[in-house]
């Protein structure tokens, strides 16, 4: 399945957002997620089924003013 992860095209076999985070190196990371522009809380990542072409955003703390 082809997805966009933080604007970069990826190919994956996983089917849930939680599994994608593990696969892509975000295990136990302090991140927030969105799929197709909608916030997906941490508690719902396991139930969040991914579809072909989904746009995934994984955000983390960063410098800000």
């Amino acid at each position, binding site marked *: 399945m082809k997805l966009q992860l933080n604007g970069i095209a990826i190919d994956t076999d996983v089917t849930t957002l939680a599994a994608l985070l593990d696969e892509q190196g975000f295990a136990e990371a302090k991140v927030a997620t*969105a799929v197709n522009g909608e*916030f997906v809380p941490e508690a719902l990542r396991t139930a969040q089924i991914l579809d072909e072409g989904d746009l995934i955003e994984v955000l*983390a*703390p960063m*410098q800000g003013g």
Partner: protein
Amino acid sequence: MRDFYGTTLTTGLMLGTAQYPSPAVMMDAFKRSAASVATVSLRRESGQDRAGQDFWAIIRDLNVHVLPNTAGCHSVKEAVTTAHMAREVFDTKWIKLEVIGEEDTLQPDVFGLVEAARILSEDGFNVFPYTTEDLVVADKLLNVGCEVLMPWGAPIGSGLGLNNPYGLRSMRAHFPDVPLVIDAGLGLPSQAAQAMEMGFDAVLLNTAVAKAGDPAAMAEAFAGAVHAGQLAAKADPMEPRDMAAPSTPILGKAFLI
């Protein structure tokens, strides 16, 4: 000092965490500024270098209140979604709400700002809206649930100081019980002192410290200015007048002509 959604801050200085030459310099600046609040943001994380995780560890060690922002958001939906993501990551109801409406000045889109503030306030957020000195907009922000207002001093990163002292003075007078923070545009400690002398409760700045030649020294200078301005406001400043008034008593002056 007025409290911010039930939190009393130890100092009236809120400091940003961006643009420092290094994390070590940023930490030093925070230490010497005694800032009570650090502003932070959310950006895309890489699963390889996990830079955000390291940054978060540094912020936690600062031992200050964390105020996440929605910087760079241009629509209500984008700002609201970012706020939700920030609440989960930073585990705080505080959100510095920015809905930018114009690229050259980064002026807030006050129509979108009020709408986003309404949605977030209803959802339990403590909204710190980055706004202009417009009294009508301020009133609408308070009506939708904001208990703090953050008018700009000048455009973000400009260092111009207080562009509209009249408007800011009016705002302070019009909302005597509302915590007010000057957010953005400060370049020098004297401008921070001016804001505090006018009765503002805090100033929020980033570039003026981070882009100084010696950020930690500038942070300390701002801390001194904020303290001086705050003290001066409490001390009830004299009214200015047009004509001179001798301070040395005339009575008892020698006749030497």
